[in-house]
């Protein structure tokens, strides 16, 4: 390959991520979410389900206070300052997990390439490859990556007897010194994809759900395949006029946000997150 040819065919080598052509980037699957904050009641069922499904260690009160907690999915509680006189309106809740960015800031900085984009649009974390430099966490705008500050499976009592019996055998417990984070329950996705492949089809909408979406009593978390235009999640994204590959949505240029509630967090940083949030509607007269 000559240099001249390389420059001539530059477009072939230069790969924008995401390219804007969802079908080209992800012919089969692009896993995504839509979370309706208006439906979310902040009940934390998703968090509990996440702990159970993913063998997330419970760190205890002291370490929680030290900020060393491991919750892959956290419910953030915000009190709106404008609501100070009307506390009965309640707090606002925001379930926050790894946003599975299409151009993830964490991926480029990892010295060993332990975190990567998968063909189905996930931001994977390879535990065996991680050396624990924590650069990914440093560069994550959402700070949704959690580091194993201690040796939870061996030295700590994250799962006192007989709790080890309930650990999920579909995935590992993580050793000390490595980074972990929400995977969109990749063990479930892989199982469903494998079944579908055996049957010569794609995964149907609703056939597989991560633990949080499955356990949400109010149905605030919608999960599915964005590459499938008929999936519920794709419909929501379309309805909310949010496109994966844009750092500023067309609707935001109109002034009234197109009359819809959809937004992605810190979109302007160009990480292209895969989680769509639907703003909560407040009754200002109540």
């Amino acid at each position: 390959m000559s240099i001249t040819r390389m420059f001539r065919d530059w477009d072939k080598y230069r790969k924008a991520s995401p390219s804007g052509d969802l079908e080209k980037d992800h012919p089969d699957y692009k896993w995504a979410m839509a979370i309706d904050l208006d439906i979310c009641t902040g009940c934390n069922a998703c968090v509990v389900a996440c702990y159970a499904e993913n063998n997330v260690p419970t760190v205890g009160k002291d370490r929680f206070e030290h900020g060393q907690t491991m919750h892959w999915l956290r419910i953030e509680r915000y009190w709106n300052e404008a609501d100070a006189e009307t506390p009965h309106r309640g707090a606002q809740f925001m379930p926050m997990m790894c946003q599975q960015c299409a151009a993830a800031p964490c991926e480029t900085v990892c010295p060993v390439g332990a975190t990567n984009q998968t063909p189905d649009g996930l931001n994977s974390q390879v535990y065996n490859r991680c050396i624990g430099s924590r650069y990914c966490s440093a560069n994550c705008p959402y700070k949704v990556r959690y580091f194993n500050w201690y040796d939870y499976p061996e030295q700590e009592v994250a799962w006192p007897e007989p709790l080890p019996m309930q650990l999920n055998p579909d995935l590992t417990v993580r050793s000390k010194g490595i980074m972990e984070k929400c995977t969109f329950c990749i063990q479930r996705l892989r199982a469903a994809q494998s079944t579908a492949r055996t049957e010569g089809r794609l995964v149907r909408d609703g056939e597989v759900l991560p633990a949080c979406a499955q356990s949400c009593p109010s149905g605030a978390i919608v999960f599915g395949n964005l590459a499938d235009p008929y999936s519920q999640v794709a419909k929501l994204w379309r309805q909310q006029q949010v496109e994966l590959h844009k750092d500023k949505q067309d609707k935001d240029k109109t002034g009234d946000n197109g009359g819809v509630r959809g937004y992605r967090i810190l979109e302007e940083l160009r990480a292209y997150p895969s989680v769509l949030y639907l703003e909560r509607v407040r009754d200002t007269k109540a």
Partner: protein
Amino acid sequence: MPDFTKGEEKDIRDTIAWAQINGDVLRSLSKPRFAFWALFTFALCLFSIGVACEVYQWRRGLGVANFDNPHVWGLYISTFIFWIGMSHSGTLLSAILHIIHADWRKPIYRFAEAMTTFSLMTAGLFVLIHLGRLWKFYYSLPYPSERMLWPNFQSPLLWDAIAIFTYLTSSILFLYVGAIPDFAICRDNATGWRKHFYSMLSLGWMGTDRQWRSFRVTYLTIACFLIPLAVSVHSIVASDFAMSQQPGWHVTSFPPYFVAGALYSGCAAIITLFIVLRYTFRFEEYMTMPILDKVGRLTFAIAMVWTYLNFVEYASVWYGDDMYAKDLLIQKATGPYSPFWWGMNFCGSVVPLLLLSKSVRGSPTAMMIVSLLLNLGMWLERWMIVAPTFSHGYYPWTMDHDQWPGFVQWGIVLGSFGWFGLLFMLFCKLVPSVSMYEVKEMVYHRTLAQRHAREA
């Protein structure tokens, strides 16, 4: 106290006999003052604290050092940058001043080079200590593996690893090559195991004309190679931050800012060690006050460059359109880190103004205090680059203003000073810390110049 201000005082007395130079320097290898052993013990104690902390941290995990989310880096990375910065002094004094023929560097460049090498070794330790799985550190090196697994060449941390290894090997080579003629002098004067030791190190140096020619060319070549390398190393360390996306780090001016900071802290450390060595090894004849005066002036100049770049950074954030970065800057000046942030600005930009005073530059005690304050400022600078960004990032929910580095972190930071001190003092005991042949050359040149002046 002699007055150095009139320009009459010489960098070195030009009547020192060559045999006396040999005698004075070789004596430092055998009979240092008591202060040497006191400092050595002190360094050993600090080092032991660090080792104990590291053992504990290795066994239990990094949590014992009181890291959390979002504070994932803490003092290890700050102190890593600090030591990398220190390593620039040797290159500045040896290579840059060598090329521009500033011959007052000659009596003091050897220990500056040793400082370069040892501070790089210390910095390298921090990269390892900081890792969650230290025992897997080799994953970050580009070694050929049967699985065709390579490190991520996009990551600034990988550039770091490569740059530091290159710089470390080159600076060891530079230090060693520059010392060969002195090893030969040691060999000729040593007995017992020392004779053996220096014979090996001196590579059969006889001081023939041909050897001197080859030596000069080699030394100059490595010097020329080392200068761009030194600039690149700290630029790459700056890239760790500048290439990231976080507020306070995503700054284009970081590479030159880091290089200036590195030269600055390096110069300050040279002043400190200059005074320590001058006292402990009785090097008053060689490490003279006029030379200290020149180093002081150099430090002042670099301090002003650093100050300028510092204000460039503040100004570009203040007048820029990045509200997160601006918020962070305000947070630095008013939040829980404000004492340290103002301390850094005071030590880094105000204290060096003392160097304008001739009486300060002429007093070893004053210079010692000033240099320690400057280095404190530079250490704070690195901490103020790393920590506030973690405490006040993009995402309000994870802002954490209360985290304070744990005892283990402080212990390892202290231990690193002990480790550096041990290495440095062992070096001074085994290798002539004043370059004998270059000092002779310096004296010779001065004598020649005087003779010419008399004849003319």
